[in-house]
């Protein structure tokens, strides 16, 4: 596949990923396989590019002091082990099953996005002993409401093991699995939405590196193929973040929901009838 095609596809993937907040992989992998790339190789190069996009955005959030480093570093212990296991499973599993799993993932993200995420957050009053021992509390200055938000993370005993699952999916399918991590932060650990999103970004970088290491060891990382994808996704994500302020949220959602639905069905159909890949 030529540099130009890879670069262009990756710009679009990074752009759509940044605007929807889903990351580049969910668009990148289906399109790469559609263009004839083997699904396992598409997963391998995608996960390398995830390191770049997540580290790039995490750097800004961490310096803004919204990310909770302790929450991130505690949960990383689980996601990296999950990612190693997930990537190892991908290496031995059949391609059809990967197509079907990826399609299922896209369709479930479609359902999750369709039920719009509620931005209402209420602080948790009581913190369990384990989470307190882990020092999972913090505060950040929220510019939009101009006040310091103080919060306590809870149920770390549940959040940790669940994060193993999020890491497993990330390594298995070559994506950041950010939406899943945010869900665990929100629903299980009671973190405010901004802290959830930014902390998940921090975790994704390390998780993607763990996944990458397995694919690298299997000889599946081709630098000549990975590099244009990394550059494209980074530029696309950069532009997507800029444009995000100008487009209304509803437009983005509608475009993205349509894209997810088509890609999801396409992947499942190809998995079942074994078309290409």
């Amino acid at each position, binding site marked *: 596949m*030529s*540099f*130009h095609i890879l670069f262009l596809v990756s710009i679009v993937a990074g752009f759509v990923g940044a605007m929807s907040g889903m990351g580049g992989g969910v668009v990148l992998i289906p399109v790469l396989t559609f263009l004839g790339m083997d699904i396992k190789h598409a997963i391998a190069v995608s996960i*390398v590019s995830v*390191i*770049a996009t997540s*580290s*790039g955005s*995490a*750097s*800004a959030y*961490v*310096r803004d*002091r*919204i*990310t*909770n*480093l*302790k929450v991130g*570093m*505690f949960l*990383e*212990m689980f996601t*990296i*082990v999950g990612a*190693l296991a997930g990537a190892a499973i991908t290496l031995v599993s059949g391609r059809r099953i990967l197509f079907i799993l990826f399609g299922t993932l896209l369709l479930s993200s479609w359902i999750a996005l369709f039920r719009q995420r509620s931005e209402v957050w209420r*602080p948790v009053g009581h913190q369990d002993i384990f989470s307190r*021992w*882990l*020092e999972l*509390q*913090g*505060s*950040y*200055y929220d510019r939009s409401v101009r006040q*310091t938000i*103080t919060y*306590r993370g809870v149920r770390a005993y549940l959040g940790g093991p669940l994060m193993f699952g999020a890491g497993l999916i990330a390594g298995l399918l070559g994506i950041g699995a950010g939406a899943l991590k945010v869900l665990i932060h929100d629903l299980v650990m009671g973190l405010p939405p901004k802290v959830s999103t930014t902390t998940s970004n*921090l975790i994704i*970088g*390390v998780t993607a*590196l*763990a996944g*990458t*290491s*397995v694919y*690298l*060891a299997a*000889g*599946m*990382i*081709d*630098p*000549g193929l*990975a*590099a*244009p994808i*990394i*550059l494209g996704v*980074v530029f696309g994500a950069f532009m997507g973040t800029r444009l995000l302020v100008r487009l209304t949220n509803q437009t983005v959602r509608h475009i993205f929901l349509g894209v997810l639905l088509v890609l999801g069905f396409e992947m499942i159909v190809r998995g079942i009838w074994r078309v290409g890949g």
Partner: protein
Amino acid sequence: MKEQGSPDYPGKEKKNDPLDMESLVGYILLTGVLLSVALLLISFVWRWAGVGSLRFEHSIVGMNFFEFISSTLRQVASRAFRPRLFLNMGIGVLMLTPFVRVLASVVYFAFVEHNWKYTLFTAFVLSVLTYSLFLR
């Protein structure tokens, strides 16, 4: 609403310290990604100016990550600069970025914050990553 006087709120007491953990982690990530993108751009511009093609064909086979890094560094040391070397440097720097971030966290928790709990957690992450990067 005031929390029990924990000293490590992100964005409170430590905000004025120029070398706190947030800045350290943030700048490591930023430097890593920018450097990697710059190296990859150099490799493609050079390749294009040299042979008029942007295509590279080589895989990293039979090498673990640390062997890949050391072979890249040896080429840098012997000044064997070629577009492909910049390409490898770009990929290497990108993969080292989260690794160095975890390494710096271990050092910071151990020597600056003296927080042994989190030194242990980050050290676990570091050892698993190191082990996985030695795989081949």
